[in-house]
C-alpha cells in the first residue's frame, strides 16, 4: 500500500499549476469576472492540448491514457484558480463528442431540468438521466437567462423539456453522475485549499492591537479547522479516485462540498470587513462552491447513498 502521490503525479500537478498560473492568473480571472464570465476558447484549446480533457482516453485514441486519480489532481488545480466553464462535462464527453478531447468543443450538461451552465457557449449538450443522450444546444432554444450567483458561471434555464436526440448507449447515467460528482469534488477540494491559504496569508500579515491577527487563538482555531476539513476531504477524494466506489465517491462529494463552502465562509470571516467586499476573491470561491454543491450529487442524495451502503453489513472493508 502506498497512498501517497507518485513522482509522476506530483509532476503532472505542478505542470497544470504552472499552465494555469500563466494563462489564468488573478488578473485574468478578475477580468473574466468583469466581462461576465463565459468560456475562453483559446484557453479551452490550450487545456485540450495539455491533455486536460483527453487525460483518460487510451493513447491509441489520441488520449493520455491516465486514470481518475490523475484527473482529480488536474481538477483540483482548476478549482484552486476558479477556472470557469463546463470543465467536468467536457472532460466526461471526451471521446464521445467530437472535438471535446482536443478542447475544440465545449460540452455542457443538463441534469434533472436544473439551469444549464454556459449553454450559450456550448457546442453540445449532454442530457443526463437513466440513459445519457446528446442534444444540440439549440434544442434548448428560448432558454431563459438566470441571474447567476456566480459571476463566472452563466446559467440558462430551459423553458421546455429537452429531449436528447442521440442516445449514448456506451455511457451509463450512474457512472457519469458519480464521475461528475468526483471531479466536481476535486474542484471543491482545490477551492478549499486555496481559501485556507488565503486566510493564513491574511492572518499572518494583518495586524491589529499591534500584533498579527494570526496570533489570536480565535483566529488560529478558525484556520486550524479549515485545514482539518481540507485534509479529510483530500483523503476522501483521492481514495474515491483510486477505488471508484460509489459510496466512497458520495462521501468524497459530501465532505468536499462542506470543505469548500465552510472554508470560504471562514476565510471571509478571517478577512473581516475586507472579506465582504467585491475586491476580495473569497466571495467568488464561496459562490462557486455553492453552485458545485448543487450539481451531480447533492448532500441529501449523497447521505442517502451512504445510508444505503450501511445496509451492506460490512465493517471496514479491505483496501
Amino acid at each position, binding site marked *: 500500500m502506498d497512498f501517497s502521490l507518485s513522482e509522476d503525479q506530483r509532476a503532472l500537478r505542478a505542470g497544470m499549476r504552472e499552465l494555469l498560473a500563466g494563462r489564468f492568473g488573478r488578473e485574468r480571472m478578475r477580468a473574466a469576472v468583469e466581462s461576465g464570465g463565459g468560456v475562453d476558447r483559446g484557453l479551452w484549446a490550450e487545456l485540450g492540448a495539455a491533455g486536460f480533457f483527453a487525460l483518460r482516453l487510451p493513447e491509441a485514441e489520441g488520449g493520455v491514457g491516465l486514470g481518475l486519480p490523475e484527473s482529480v489532481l488536474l481538477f483540483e488545480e482548476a478549482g484552486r484558480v476558479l477556472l470557469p466553464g463546463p470543465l467536468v462535462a467536457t472532460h466526461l464527453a471526451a471521446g464521445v463528442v467530437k472535438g471535446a478531447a482536443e478542447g475544440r468543443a465545449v460540452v455542457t450538461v443538463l441534469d434533472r431540468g436544473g439551469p444549464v451552465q454556459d449553454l450559450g457557449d456550448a457546442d453540445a449538450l449532454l442530457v443526463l438521466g437513466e440513459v445519457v443522450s446528446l442534444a444540440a444546444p439549440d434544442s434548448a432554444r428560448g432558454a431563459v437567462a438566470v441571474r447567476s450567483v456566480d459571476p463566472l458561471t452563466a446559467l440558462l434555464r430551459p423553458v421546455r423539456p429537452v429531449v436528447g436526440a442521440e442516445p449514448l448507449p456506451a455511457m451509463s447515467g450512474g457512472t457519469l453522475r458519480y464521475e461528475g460528482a468526483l471531479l466536481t469534488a476535486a474542484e471543491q477540494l482545490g477551492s478549499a485549499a486555496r481559501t485556507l491559504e488565503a486566510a493564513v496569508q491574511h492572518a499572518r500579515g494583518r495586524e491589529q492591537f499591534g500584533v498579527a491577527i494570526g496570533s489570536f487563538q480565535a483566529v488560529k482555531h478558525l484556520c486550524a479547522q479549515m485545514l482539518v476539513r481540507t485534509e479529510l476531504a483530500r*483523503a476522501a477524494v483521492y481514495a474515491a479516485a483510486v477505488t471508484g466506489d460509489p459510496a466512497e465517491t458520495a462521501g468524497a462529494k459530501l465532505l468536499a462540498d462542506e470543505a469548500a463552502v465552510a472554508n470560504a465562509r471562514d476565510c471571509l470571516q478571517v478577512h473581516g470587513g475586507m472579506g465582504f467586499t467585491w475586491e476580495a476573491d473569497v466571495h467568488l470561491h464561496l459562490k462557486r462552491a455553492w453552485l458545485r454543491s448543487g450539481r451531480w450529487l447533492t448532500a441529501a442524495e449523497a447521505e442517502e447513498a451512504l445510508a444505503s451502503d450501511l445496509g451492506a453489513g460490512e465493517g*471496514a472493508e479491505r483496501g
Partner: protein
Amino acid sequence: MTDLSYSEEEDEFRARLREWLAGVLPGLPPKPSPDDWPGRRAYDAAWQRMLYDAGYAGLHWPVDAGGQGATPTRQLIFLEETEKAGAPYVGANFVGLLHAGPTVAAEGTAEQRARWLPPVLRGEEIWCQGFSEPEAGSDLAALRTRAVRDGSHYVVSGQKIWTSHAEVADWCELLVRTDPRAPKHRGISWLAMPMDAPGVTVRPLRTLAGSTEFAEMFLDEVRVPVANRVGQENDGWRVTMVTLSFERGTAFVGEVVACRRTLAALAGEARATGRWDDAVLRRRLGRLNAEFRALWRLTQWNVSEAERSGGVPGAGGSVFKLRYSQARQELYEAAAEVLGADACDLDREWVLDRLSSLSYTIAAGTSQIQRNIVAERLLGLPKGR
C-alpha cells in the same frame, strides 16, 4: 495515490493473522467488569502473552528492542484485523507498549532496554503514565513534582493526576522537575518509578461514567535510583516529545475500525426498530459513514506519508485527532437517537460509550490545544495567546 492495495507479502501476513485470531479468540475467558482492576490486568496480561508467544508482540518496535521492526503498514493491518475480529484491546498495556516502551527503546541505555522492554512485551509488567498534574494539564511543562538528588537517588515529592492503570501498574513513567530555576521546558527529567516504592499513594478517581478509569497519585519523598533516569538530566521534555510524535500516527487505527462496526450496528438496530424511516436520522447515519470512511483513508494517507518520509508521523496526527474525536462523539449522539427512550438505560449498549466519548476531546491534548498545534506547526501562524 495509485495504490490502496496491499502487497502479496502483506496479504499473507493478514491471512496468517486472521487464521491465528480465529483459532485463539473463541478460547478467551469472558471480559472482566470495568471496575475489576486486578481482573482487567490479568486479562490484558494474558492476551499480551498470547501475542508474544505467537510473534505478534511489539510488531512496530525496533528489532534490537525485542520487536519485529514491522512497517507502519503491517502495524495498520495488525490493528485493523485484531479490531475486526473483536480481539481484546491493548488495555492495561497501553502505556508500556505505546509510550514508555518506545521511549526506553529510543532513548534508554542497553541496561535499561534489557531490564524494562522484555517484560512489557511478555505482558509481565504494566506501566502507567505520570505526566499530568492538577496545576499542569494542557500546560504540561508547568509541572511541579520535584526530584532532588540525594547520592545515587532522586527524592521525589508532588502530585500526579489522570493516571490510567495506576492501581495495577508496576512502573510509572514519571516526569519530574530536576532544575526549578531553569526555563520550564528545560528543567524536566524522565524517570522510571517503581509503583511499590514507599511514599507512593494511589487514590482512584471516579469518572462521570461511574467507573474508575484513572487515579490521582501522591508522591511523598519517594526514592528513585538515578540509574532509572532515561536520557540526560533536565532533558526529559525532549525525551517525551520523541515518543509523543509516534503515538498519534497509528494510535487510533483500531478505534476507527471499531467506529465503523458500531455505525453498521446502529443502522441494523434502526432498521429493526423502524427508526430507519426517519429521513433525518438516516441521513445523519449516512453522513457518519462518510466521516469514518474518510478517517480511515486519512489514516492510510498518514501511514503512507510516514513510510515515505522515514517513519516519523508528523503533526498530521493532530489533524486526525481533531476530526476523529468530534466524529466519535457525534456517533454516540446518533446512537442515543436510535435508542430513543432507552438512551437513559445504562445497561443498553452504547450508553456508557456515549458517556466515555465525552473524554475524547480532552484526553491526549484537548481539541483547543490540538488546534493551536495545527495552526502554529502546520500553518505557520505566530505563537500567541
